[in-house]
């Protein structure tokens, strides 16, 4: 083939790819690959051609993120040795590098451990409500992180990299799988009502992927749950005015477009206003919990449907249960409407007073209410999805940036532990009631130093369950075909059905 001709074709192709991923609405990267094979098709129908790598077990994901570093040895990772050696100096036999402190004495969990479910999994009373669900959950106790600092470590769990600038898992899924609903964002984030976690919204950014794949923050308990969904109150904008304005806008845009043939962006933009209008109808409907029966609200721990009550910065059990439960219920409703990925955050930034899981000072004071609130909502979510038949093809992932040390910090708290912590997964394609990757006798490090789990493996497993080969979901940026899993990642076959 003539070199110039080849270049022309490559450039045309590049440009088409460019065009499709920029303006193709919810069209995903994998879908694109198959579409690009059909040379003259410029279709941008988001429903049409989602071609996965293999048959999926699940279609959607909810990630529960415990911001600040949730303790594994006070929740899901039972170690009798901690009770036995409680209060004695900690000597694990090798040097311990801590973030803030010198190792204190061994400290047992402030609450009781009990065996729960058919599987008999030991669960701490800190998260007692989740005891009902252990037979649906696969626990992974040999998690490790590459950083001991909240910022980089949170980026790692959220994006697979310890640096800012990379797309979050939800953005990758949006890019790879596209949307099931064009009147709602593909990737929705429900932040803690007290504020954003460390790194802020960059945790759910799209990095180098196009902006439509970034997470859209929704605050179900705020008066204006989605930014700019409606004009500010008390402005000159009215709903009837908007109906007329949108019709008039389309007429003017159509005339403009008629004089400028061959530029599909102009059409794409006209269409974006139609979708916007549909979103204005759909989003409030999803957020409106008034139609939920009382027993469902009760299950999620929701006592009141008021919006915008005053948010208290300090951790307290009532508020934890309320907000986390409401976010879980809204998440279920979003998934029902075709949203692919919902990320729910428990815990905000590292400001004072303490408002996340970073319990350096007092595990009992902070993990107690946080655990109760999270476990109530999470258990309700799993049960609710199950009774609706949705748990079969929905993944629930519980994660945090690192765990906490088995020894105490300043007598009642615990310092960071990036050397060993817990994640768990429930739902589509996951073998419930399993425990994978033991930690050592202290719940400090993986028992087997050669078998450790990184977020790469979690991400690879989730993509696998969704029908995606993590090594083949790529996007070229500044010379590298980037992946969610970088150059790492193994599917954890042991926890799959």
């Amino acid at each position, binding site marked *: 083939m003539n070199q110039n001709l080849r*270049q*022309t074709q490559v*450039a*045309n192709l*590049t*440009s*088409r790819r*460019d065009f499709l991923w*920029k*303006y193709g609405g919810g069209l995903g990267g994998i879908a694109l690959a198959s579409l690009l094979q059909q040379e003259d098709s410029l279709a941008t129908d988001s429903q049409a051609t989602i071609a996965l790598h293999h048959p999926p077990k699940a279609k959607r994901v909810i990630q529960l993120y415990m911001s600040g570093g949730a303790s594994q040895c006070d929740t899901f990772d039972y170690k009798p040795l901690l009770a036995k050696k409680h209060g004695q100096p900690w000597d694990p036999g090798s040097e311990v590098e801590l*973030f803030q402190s010198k190792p204190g004495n061994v400290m047992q969990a402030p609450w009781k451990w009990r065996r729960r479910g058919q599987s008999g999994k030991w669960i701490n009373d800190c998260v007692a409500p989740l005891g009902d669900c252990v037979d649906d959950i696969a626990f992974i106790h040999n998690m490790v992180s590459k*950083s*001991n*600092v*909240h*910022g*980089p470590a*949170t980026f790692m769990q959220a994006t697979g990299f310890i*640096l*800012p*600038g990379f797309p979050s898992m939800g953005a990758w899924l949006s890019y790879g799988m596209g949307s099931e609903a064009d009147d709602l964002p593909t990737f929705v984030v429900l932040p803690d009502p007290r*504020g*954003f976690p460390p*790194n802020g*919204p*960059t945790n759910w*950014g799209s990095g180098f992927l196009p*902006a*439509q794949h970034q997470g*859209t923050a929704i605050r179900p308990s705020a008066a*204006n749950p989605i*930014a*700019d969904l409606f*004009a500010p109150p008390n402005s*000159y*904008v009215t709903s009837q*005015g*908007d109906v*007329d*304005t949108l019709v*008039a*806008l389309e*007429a*003017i845009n159509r*005339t403009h477009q008629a004089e*400028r043939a061959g530029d599909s*962006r102009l059409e794409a*933009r006209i269409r*974006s*206003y139609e*979708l*916007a209008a*549909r979103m*204005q109808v759909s989003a409030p409907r999803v957020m409106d919990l008034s139609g939920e029966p009382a027993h469902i609200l009760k299950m999620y721990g929701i006592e009141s449907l008021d919006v915008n009550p005053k948010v208290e910065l300090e951790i307290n059990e009532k508020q934890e249960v309320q907000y986390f439960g409401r976010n879980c219920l809204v998440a279920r409703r979003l998934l029902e409407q075709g949203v692919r990925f919902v990320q729910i955050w428990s815990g905000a*930034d*590292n400001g*004072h007073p303490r408002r996340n899981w970073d319990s350096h000072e007092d595990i009992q004071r902070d993990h107690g209410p946080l655990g109760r609130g999270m476990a109530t909502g999470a258990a309700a979510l799993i049960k609710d999805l199950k009774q609706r038949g949705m748990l079969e093809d929905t993944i629930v992932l519980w994660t945090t940036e690192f765990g906490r040390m088995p020894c105490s910090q300043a007598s009642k708290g615990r310092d960071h532990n990036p050397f060993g912590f817990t994640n768990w997964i429930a739902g589509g394609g996951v073998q419930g009631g399993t425990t994978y990757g033991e930690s050592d006798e202290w719940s400090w490090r993986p028992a087997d130093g050669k078998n450790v789990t990184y977020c790469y493996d979690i991400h690879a497993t989730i993509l696998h369950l969704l029908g995606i080969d993590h090594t083949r979901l790529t996007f*070229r940026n*500044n*010379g590298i075909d980037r992946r969610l899993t970088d150059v790492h990642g193994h599917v954890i076959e042991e926890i799959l059905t």
Partner: protein
Amino acid sequence: MPITSPSHYLPTQRLFVGTMLGAPFATLAWIRIFANSFRVRSKKLTCLFHDIMRLAVTICLVYTMTYATILPTSAAPAVDFVRDIAPIFEQHCVSCHKSSDPNGDLDLTYAEGVLNDNDLPLVVVENPAESLLLKMISGDQPEMPQDANPLSAEQVATIKRWIEQGAPWPAETLLVDKNVVDTDWWSFKPLNKPAVPQLHESDSVWVRTPIDTFVLSMLRERGLSPSPEADRRTLLRRLYFDLVGLPPTPEESDAFVKDTNPQAYEQLVERLLASKHYGERWARHWLDIVHYGDTHGFDKDKVRNNAWPYRDYVIRAFNDDKPYDRFVREQLAGDAFYPNETDGIVALGFIAAGPFDWVGQIEVGAGTLEKKRVRNLDRDDMVRNTIETFCSATVGCARCHDHKFDPFTAIDYYSLQAVFATVDRADRQYAVDSAVEARRASLSETRKDLSSQIKANNDSKERNDEQLSDLQKSLEAVDVQLKALPKQKYVFAATTSFAGQGQFQPTQGKPRPVHLLQRGSVSSPLQQVEPGTIQCLSHLKSYFPPNTLFATGANRAALADWILDEQNPLTWRSIVNRVWQFHFGRGLVDTASDFGRMGTLPTHPQLLDWLAVTFRDEGRSIKNLHRLIVNSATYRQSSNHNEHHAKIDRSNQYLWRMNRRRLDAESLRDAMLVVAGEMDFKMYGPGFRAFGFEDDHSPRYKYEEYDPNDPASHRRTIYRFIVRSAPDPFMETLDCADPSMLVARRNETLTPLQALALLNNHFVVTMAEHFAQQINKPSDSTADQIARATRLAFGREPTPQETQILTDIANKHGLPNACRLIFNTNEFLFID
């Protein structure tokens, strides 16, 4: 497994033996590795490297020319390792399995690594089928090569036969990752000025600048022809947004359309290039590339109060048309080259522009692995920012292993890190006026003197109260004078000396040791590495000998000299391509920060080189480059569609028309402010904050608390205070650059959430209201008001349809709603 360099087990004389024995290619590779190991230990010996390399290349050529004709053409039954096996391993295996990065602890570059591996039965001569090597590459879904096509059946068979024949591998034959030595790629080729192509006489009429000759000849080759020139209003609007990022006023628009001077267009170009708003527009492009921000990023995203002087420096540099070489030198090593000038210091904000891991730097203890990780990534950002920005080379890939596609080794990469081994990102004092600073220094000296005299007097047994009182008075007088001097200023920049905080202490110029890291891991350091740069441009010195000319930053100065060497082909191509990209929406090379094998090829290689050489040799003036481009007939074409041409070149890479552009986030916001009559053109200084702010140990940026009527925020958007952790949601939905990434070109999206932002964001709703007030003269009819509105927003009279539709909306729902509609039109958002 040995991970160290091969020079540990190969005596030097083998270099010559290997050459004699007829394995010169492997020898060439070995010399390179050998030289790398020298680089690590001795700078002096490294200078031998280029000579040896040249000799080796010559030997290779002679070898090829001699033996290529002698070797039998039919396949010999015996497998020859060098001829048959080495190329397979080199092409498919050693990029992962090599000494500097032995994946799976397997090093396939030398005989012992494969044949005598005691842990793995890699090659079992007695029973070839048992060879792990063979198992890994055969079968339906072979495990190796990972993430790549399997080897062909023929290749597998050859390897099998090789094992059957006893797996002979001459000990002196070392394999090398071909990518790392292969510089046969367009961007590494020397830069020569191509002749301007010959055109038919009838075609040369169209030509306005030499650019057109290149473009037209390419069009003709493909059966394409240029589009007609755009009309005057379109050209005016295009030039305004492109050069100054603002809409023209209706008056400017009318005057230009009516101007009968044949040079009217060129004069307009000159006016716009001379405008102070030009720098505000083009500095923004630069700030995208170097990831400028006003906070540190990460957890506890602290405010960076002194970042803005660098932003202002960039604006001034563009307005002053600072020669590009000077611009580069100041940013990379201004403290070395121009230590006594303001710009020499302020420009160093470039090195510090990216994120800063505050917790990791200030709270994490020295000596921990975590600290090493933080510093490694901090330098990584400096290296990538420098080499991607100035050279369009993705050297950052070599942090974990030699670059998989381009000839950049891990040693190259870490030697670049070593260039930045003395600097940190911190507030650095700079002098605004050297006379003032001299005065401050002398007063401070006097003050010190007086203080010690007072102390001596006080402590003395013969205390003299009169003298003491005089001294006190003098001291007070000095203090008054000191206080009267302009305050000292700070810029957040690269520095070796600053007020430390917590675990974050300056180096005072003493370099921190930089090691080659196995797989990029701070827990697996290999040899210590000396300062240097990428070696593949073999005609340039890639090592930096000690230089006592500079008190500070000698290695950064050497790197700047390397970047700006006339023979560095990357630098000059990189900058002209970037400027081209911002004019046309797409570069002659589409991947402006990646000229490597993973990037795209230039569409107009001759034009690119012609521009690069012209730029390099004729003043290095960005404004002259603009003149060449915007005065061209190519640039002045209409953006209209042509079905015939689109069939040949749908993406318009050969420029048979101009590209229609969607306004970037900043230009759109600026245009709204201008049209609404609210723009405050005050230049420079700390950024405006479009958010509420609270810092209870962890800063919080609350965009929902922003009041768009706050006049302080009615400045050009380049003066926006840029938060890394919490991007401005309005700007983000319009695809503004992410300040944590090196953004060569922005994404361009059209999403429902963007439509919602343009309809409902408080800023837009407010500006539409001001826009309405602008046009709302009570004496005018609604139709007149609408006409005024389209003149302001589109630079033209309304069509009858628009008059009718907009009047209708204004009458029914008020003028602000009609104005808000105008802000949402495609015409307002797209520039033809």
